[in-house]
């Protein structure tokens, strides 16, 4: 049992990493205060700088005044603390290792390739970047088939660690598709993930937290314009 004052999430609505923490708390039915960084693009709050002095990044989970940083570390912490609620992690050590492996792949390889689409200069580079993202999704499709074993989510009947690790990017994926006029999550190549994405976004733990695509698209346009303006000439 926890009171919402005990649990705070420092973050921004648009961040997929922040979403991970919020989805995990929602799955455990833990109420929390969502403290939004309002000037995130220009200035970080004192609380953020104090809670995450090393990386100065969101999300930060503050539980009983102790800060926990790094989104996947936060998800594991949530699973470790609120043990009476359904598990986010699989039970068997080997399944846990597989989930961690793919989450690391998503963060270290796949997400950078997603960012690569926006930074690619020229048609050729853009196409190569898009192909790389799709290749990654095809690998994740295989991982989904093996992990889910015919059930709705990577985690089985319910959303689990790997669902959270990948699912948090779905709104940005759609934004990318609209911005660049491409299909990334595609029925022909990743049919399992297409259906999984619908189920994930409909889940009560996700619904209130996943941004609407159009709102995120507007935000993305502002963000990328700022980033382009800041690029060295």
């Amino acid at each position, binding site marked *: 049992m926890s009171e919402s004052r005990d649990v705070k999430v420092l973050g921004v609505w648009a961040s997929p990493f922040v979403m991970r923490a919020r989805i995990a708390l929602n799955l455990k039915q833990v109420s929390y205060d969502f403290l939004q960084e309002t000037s995130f693009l220009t200035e970080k709050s004192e609380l953020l700088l104090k809670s995450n002095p*090393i990386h100065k990044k969101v999300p930060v989970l503050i539980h009983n005044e102790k800060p*926990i940083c*790094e989104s996947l*570390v936060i998800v*594991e*912490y949530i699973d470790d603390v609120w043990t009476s609620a359904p598990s986010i992690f699989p039970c068997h050590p*080997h399944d*846990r290792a597989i989930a961690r*492996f793919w989450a*690391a792949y998503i963060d270290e390889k796949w997400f950078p390739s997603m960012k690569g689409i926006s930074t690619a200069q020229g048609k050729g580079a853009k196409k190569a970047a898009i192909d790389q993202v799709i290749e990654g999704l095809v690998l994740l499709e295989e991982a989904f088939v093996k992990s889910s074993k015919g059930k709705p989510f990577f985690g089985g009947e319910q959303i689990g660690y790997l669902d959270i690790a990948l699912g948090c990017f779905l709104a940005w994926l759609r934004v990318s598709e609209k911005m660049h006029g491409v299909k990334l999550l595609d029925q022909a190549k990743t049919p399992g993930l297409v259906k999984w994405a619908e189920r994930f976004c409909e889940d009560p733990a996700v619904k209130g937290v996943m941004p609407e695509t159009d709102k995120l698209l507007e935000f993305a346009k502002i963000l990328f314009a700022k980033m382009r303006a800041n690029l060295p000439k």
Partner: protein
Amino acid sequence: MVDVKLHGAWASPFSCRVVWALKLKGIPYENIEEDLPNKSKLILQYNPIHKKIPVLVHGRKPICESTIIIEYIDETWPQNPLLPSDPYQRALARFWVKFAEDKGFAVWTLFRSSGEEQEKAKNESLESLRTIEEHGLGNKKFFGGEEIGIVDIAFGWMSLWLGIIEEIVGVKLLEAHLFPRLYAWTKNFKEVPVIKQNLPDCHELLLLFKGVREQALGSSSSSSS
């Protein structure tokens, strides 16, 4: 028949991490030395995504990525735990393991490069060392407290490989007067019996790494297999 096999390489700090974890827990295993330029078909089969060692195979199921392997080992064989039992302390440990993974590569970039790229990598490496010195160790003997744990293992490469790189490149990073806590930690870490008995030979490592750096710097022309 040994149920646990480790596909590794004697000179790899990532491989050594797994050796240390297995030895600390007293888990018998078969060591399979992989020739890194010519990896076995098994590696490509067990780790098709990254095609890298180490790979732990337990009961014929492969587990990849050294820190993931260590968590697996800790969950499967609970004796001599490598992670704290308290959830908050576990989160801190995982935070530092991620830091070690994310920031460690700057030193390898420094090792494989020259000029401006090397200078940038040097500054990033020093920045990371400062962070660990200031925030990571506190007054503890080890990151794990009185005994070594997963964070010590993750930073273990600093106890030997860092010195080798410093010698070959001719750059001093971990200086005792600048990083007293971290410096003391490297000494203490190497004295832990399991670590002491399971570090690669310094001279062999130096020779090998000299060759690697020469190849990396001259790699615009030709390269071996």
